[in-house]
C-alpha cells in the first residue's frame, strides 16, 4: 500500500506543473513578484519533498501509519470498493441537478449500502427513510434549496 517511490514522483510532477502555470501569472506593479509567488513556493516545496520521499531513502522505509484503523487487508476486491464509491459520488455530482436531490440521493445511498455488503432489500429500506429524513432536515428545517430535478412538478 505504501509506495514512496510513486508518491514522491507524483509530487515532483505535480510541483513542476504548478510551477509552470505560476510562471505565467502577472507580477505586481513595482515589485518583482506577485500572484505567482506563493504557488511557486508551494510548488518548489512539493518538488523538494517529493524528491526526498521518492528517491532519498530508496523507498525502503515504511512510514508510520497515522490511521486510527487496524492494518488493512489486501486483495483486489478490497481496492475495488473505494473505487466503486468514488464512481458513485462522481455519478451523484453529474446527475444531481438533472435527476433532483431525491432520486440521486436514493440511488447513491442504495449503491453505497450495496458496496458495504448490504442486501438489496436492506439497502432500499435504509435509503428511503434516510432520503426523507435528510429532505426534512435540510430542505424543510434548514431551508437549503435542494434541486428537485425530475420531480419539479411535485415540488413544494
Amino acid at each position, binding site marked *: 500500500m505504501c509506495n514512496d517511490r510513486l508518491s514522491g514522483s507524483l509530487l515532483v510532477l505535480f510541483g513542476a506543473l504548478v510551477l509552470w502555470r505560476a510562471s505565467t501569472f502577472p507580477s505586481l506593479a513595482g515589485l518583482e513578484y506577485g500572484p505567482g509567488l506563493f504557488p511557486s513556493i508551494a510548488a518548489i516545496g512539493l518538488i523538494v519533498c517529493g524528491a526526498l520521499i521518492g528517491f532519498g531513502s530508496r523507498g525502503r522505509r*515504511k512510514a508510520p501509519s497515522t490511521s486510527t484503523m487496524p492494518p*488493512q487487508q489486501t486483495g483486489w476486491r478490497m481496492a475495488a470498493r473505494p473505487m466503486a464509491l468514488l464512481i458513485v459520488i462522481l455519478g451523484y*455530482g453529474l446527475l444531481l441537478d438533472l435527476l433532483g436531490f431525491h432520486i440521486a440521493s436514493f440511488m447513491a445511498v442504495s449503491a453505497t449500502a450495496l458496496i458495504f455488503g448490504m442486501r438489496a432489500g436492506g439497502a432500499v429500506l435504509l435509503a428511503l427513510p434516510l432520503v426523507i429524513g435528510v429532505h426534512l432536515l435540510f430542505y424543510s428545517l434548514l431551508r437549503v434549496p435542494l434541486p428537485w430535478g425530475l420531480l419539479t412538478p411535485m415540488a413544494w
Partner: protein
Amino acid sequence: MSASTLTSLFSPASLTVIAACTLYGTFIGAMPGLTATMAVALLVPFTYFMDPLIAISAIVATTTTAIFAGDVPGTLMRIPGTPASAAYVEDAYRLSRAGRSRSTLMVSLFAACIGGLVGVALLALIAPQLARVAVQFSSFETFWLACLGLSCAVLTSNGSVAKSFSSLFLGLFIATIGIDVAVGHPRFTFGNYELFDGISFIPAIIGLFALSEILRSAQIGHRDQPANAVQESFSKALHEAALVLRRFKRNIARSSVLGTLIGALPGAGADIAAWICYAISRRFSRHPERYGTGYIEGVTDGGSANNAAIGGAWTPALVFGIPGDSVTAIAIGILLLNGMSPGPQIFTESPELVHTLYGAFALSNLAMIPAGLLVIMASSQVVRIPRRVLMPCVLLFSLVGAYAITNSVIAIWTVLALGALGYAMEANGFPLAPAILGIVLGTIVEENFMTSMMKAQGDLLAFFDRPWAAALGTLTLLLWALLLTRGIYESVQRRRYPSPSSETETYP
C-alpha cells in the same frame, strides 16, 4: 459573565443544542474511525443556519464530548475513536481485558471533565490579556504568527518531516487557488468562475476527513472486531474510579495545565497534548515500567490533557484568528461565515460571543458526565453498529452538508477530489493535519505578506521594523532552523539505520 450571556446560554434553544451536540459528539466519538474533526465538519452545515452564539456552543459541546468518547472504542476494541485517544489506548485496552473497562472509562470521563474545566478557566484568564497586546498587530505581525502556526503544524505532526512538509505544501497550494489578493488575478481556476473564491473550506474539510474515512472503511470491509465483555457493576466501577482519581490527582492537575498550554500553540492540538503528557507522566512516574501494560496512571494524564487542549486551542483562534488545531480552524470558518472576524477586537466588539464560549465549555464539560455515563453503560452496543448502515448515512450527510454550504455541485466535486486525495495521503503515510492548516493559514500568510509588501513597497526588512514583528520573526526563523536540523538529522539517521521502525514517530 454578564446576565445577558447567562440568559442566552440557558435559553431553551441553546440548552437543546448543547444537549443534542453532547449526545452527537459522544456517539461519533464512540464510533471507531469517526473522529472529532469529522464530527465538527459534519456539524458545520447545521451551525451555518444557527445564531453564531449557539453555533459556537454546538461546536464546543461536540468536540468536548467527542474527544472523551474516543476512549470508548479504544478501551473496548483497541481502536482509538479519535487520534487524541491513541496515546494511552494500549493501557486502557489491557485494563478492559482484565474486566475493568467501566472503571477505566469512568476514570477517563472524570479526568476529561476536570481537564476541560481547567482548560477553559485558563483560556478565560490568558486570552483577554493576550488580546490587549494583539490589538496592536498589523499585517506584519499576523504574517509571522501564521508562519509560526505553519511551522508548529509540521513540528508536531506524527509523520516524517518530508511527508509532513509535502502535506503542508499541498495545503498551501490549495489555498492559492482562486483570485489573488494583490492584483485580482484568477489562479488555477481554468475559467470556472465558481473557483474564483478558491476551494470552499468546509467541503474541503468534509472531503479530507469524512470521505477519506468512508473510503478507508470500504477498503477494510465489514469485518467488525468483537468488543470486550463488560464485567463490573456500575457502583463498583464508580467507586474504583473515585479511588484512582484521588490517587492521581496531581497527575490530573499537571496534565490539565500542560495540556492547555500545548493546545494553545498554534498548530498543535489535542492529540499532541495527549502524547506529550503521557510521555511526561511516564518519566515522572514511580512505575514507568508498567506503562503500556495496562496501568491506569497514564490514562489519567492523557485523558485530562486532550480535553484541556481543546480549551487551549481556542486561545490563538480567538486572539489572533489563527487556528490552534483543525477543529478551531473550522470554528474560525464558521465565525467568518457569520460575518465575525476572530481577532483581538472580538473581545471588545462581541464580548457576548467570548463569554458564551466560556459558558458553553463549562456547561458541556458538565453535561458530558451524564452523557458519558450513559455511553459507558451502553458502550458495548454502540460500538457494534454495523458500518454498512452507518457509512451510507455518513456519506449522504457529507455530500448534502457540503452542498448546503455552496449551493452548487462544485461542493460535490471538492468533496470527491479532496476525499480521494486524503485517502491516498493517509494510505501512504502522509499526515492530514498539516494540509488542513496549510489551507487555512496559507491564505492568511499570503494575504498578510502581499499587503505588507505593498505597504512597504517591497522592502523585506519592514518585516522586522515593528518590535512585535521583530520578536515573532526571530522566533519563527529559530523554529525553521530547528526543523531544518531535525530534517537533516532524520535523513542521516535513515541512511545509517535503514530499519523499518520509525524514529520519527515522536512522543513514544
